[in-house]
């Protein structure tokens, strides 16, 4: 694991690069443009979150980096190579429970490595390390059915992390969890990420979560979506528990909220009641 400090990398070939990508879905009702002209890059060692109104194509963007969807326009490249299929150095975490109910926690975490053909001893060793990191050591032999929703999500995170991806793609991983669990796991994720410092693309609805976790927050517009603004989160790392109370944190949160509000109003109609 590389313990490199956060250094702004300028070399494009080491980035995840979105080059003017767009996505148009053909449906029975005609063509729907979900994503239009997104350009941007995720530098090495950076944690980037994407926020935006519902249905703005955030997940679409993530699926394109993961190689699950092909953009209908432009291209995504990782370290100078165009993404055409799921790559060996990317890993995904989803919002829904994606644990395999017939496998133990250990074999769930080792699943990605198993598919890649990593020998049993080695993959179990690597999986155990990750299980330790996400705090599930006593549950190694449990089945997902015996775990809570938050614990299952930690299994999914451990599975992705065990693959030691150069790019970690997280699609609202805490979306189905309650507020308390969500904050707790967010802190844990950050603690683990501080050790790995791989590139993370994180999709969320939660502005506070985005500010707390990220180096950059991309605010997406309503459909057809573009990146409306990139907000640099200049809070120092590591970020201890009190971070949420910092004045700068509040400022960033307010700023993001004002940006998201405009877009949400576009989606829901002007004067929409927003909590």
């Amino acid at each position: 694991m590389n313990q490199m400090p956060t250094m702004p990398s300028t070399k494009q070939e080491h980035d995840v690069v979105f080059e003017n990508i767009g996505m148009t879905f053909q449906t029975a009702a005609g063509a729907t443009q979900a994503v239009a002209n997104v350009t941007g890059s995720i530098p090495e060692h950076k944690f980037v979150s994407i926020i935006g109104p519902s249905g703005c194509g955030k997940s679409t963007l993530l699926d394109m980096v993961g190689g699950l969807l092909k953009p209908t326009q432009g291209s995504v490249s990782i370290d100078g190579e165009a993404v055409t299929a799921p790559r060996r150095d990317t890993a995904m975490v989803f919002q829904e429970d994606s644990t395999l109910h017939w496998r133990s926690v250990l074999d769930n975490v080792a699943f990605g490595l198993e598919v890649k053909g990593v020998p049993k001893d080695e993959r179990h060793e690597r999986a155990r390390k990750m299980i330790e990191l996400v705090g599930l050591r006593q549950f190694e032999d449990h089945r997902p059915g015996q775990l809570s929703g938050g614990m299952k999500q930690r299994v999914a995170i451990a599975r992705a992390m065990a693959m030691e991806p150069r790019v970690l793609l997280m699609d609202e991983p805490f979306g189905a969890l309650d507020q308390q669990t969500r904050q707790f796991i967010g802190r844990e994720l950050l603690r683990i990420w501080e050790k790995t410092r791989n590139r993370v693309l994180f999709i969320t609805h939660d502005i506070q979560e985005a500010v707390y976790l990220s180096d950059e927050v991309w605010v997406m517009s309503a459909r057809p979506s573009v990146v409306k603004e990139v907000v640099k989160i200049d809070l120092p790392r590591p970020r201890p528990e009190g971070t949420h109370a910092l004045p700068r944190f509040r400022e960033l949160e307010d700023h993001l909220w004002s940006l998201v509000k405009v877009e949400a109003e576009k989606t829901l109609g002007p004067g929409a009641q927003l909590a």
Partner: protein
Amino acid sequence: MVAGQSGSGEDPWTRGAAGVTVAKTLTRSQPDPLRRRAAAVRWAILVGLVVVLEAATRTGLVDRTLMVPPSEILARLISIVPTGQFGADAVRTITTILVAFAVGLVLGIPLGVVLWRIPAAGRILEPFIVTGYAMPTLLFYPVLLAVMGLNAGPIILIAASMSLVPIALTTMVALNSIKPILHKLANSVNASPSQYYVKVLLPAATPLVFPGVKLGFIYAVIGTVAMEFILAAQGIGFRAGFYYRELNTADMWAYIAVVVVLSVLVNSILTWLEKRIRRDML
């Protein structure tokens, strides 16, 4: 299909002082007093029925040509079971059932996979299969006998075709009901087609396919014994039918008892297996 069902509300996970998470306590169905009482009543009913039958047959309320006292059936059973003829009949019937079931399994599961994998095939073939379900296939038995001869072949064919239908249908339904997220997961780790089938689809579908497999086995038993009863040269069903036509009520009932015991035994084994497989689902 409910998306995002990793519910948060009903999943209490408490956090200790040191941030240690504690799993919800595992509740596995234990033999509770209610269930135990039900089992006791069930046995009482069974014993009661036997006693009533014994009384009814001994007093002549039920004619001896219809039914003999259970004690007599048991006595016949005890003298029949050690004979070579019984051994040969039992081996013949059990082998026929197992072969028919194996054929049903080997053809039914791939058929279910095809029906799931190619929706057009599903749309085209499903009515045929459902008709096969509803139709008394035993009507083809005489024709098959004429074509294939008086051996286990026609019985296996009919029993296997009966066994195949529920297996194929539940396989299709089970594969259809796999959470889409698991397909996405397999895709995201770039699983090969064989890894996809062996490591994801098959284990995910197994608990849901099992009821169909169980039904398939039961159909293999019914098909085999019923065809033997109609016409065969050997087998437990044949022997029951033979004594029926001979008006040997005691021996007929002894063979019926064998079929009952066999069915209960098979069903218990399958239920036990099912519980083991389902335990992972929790």
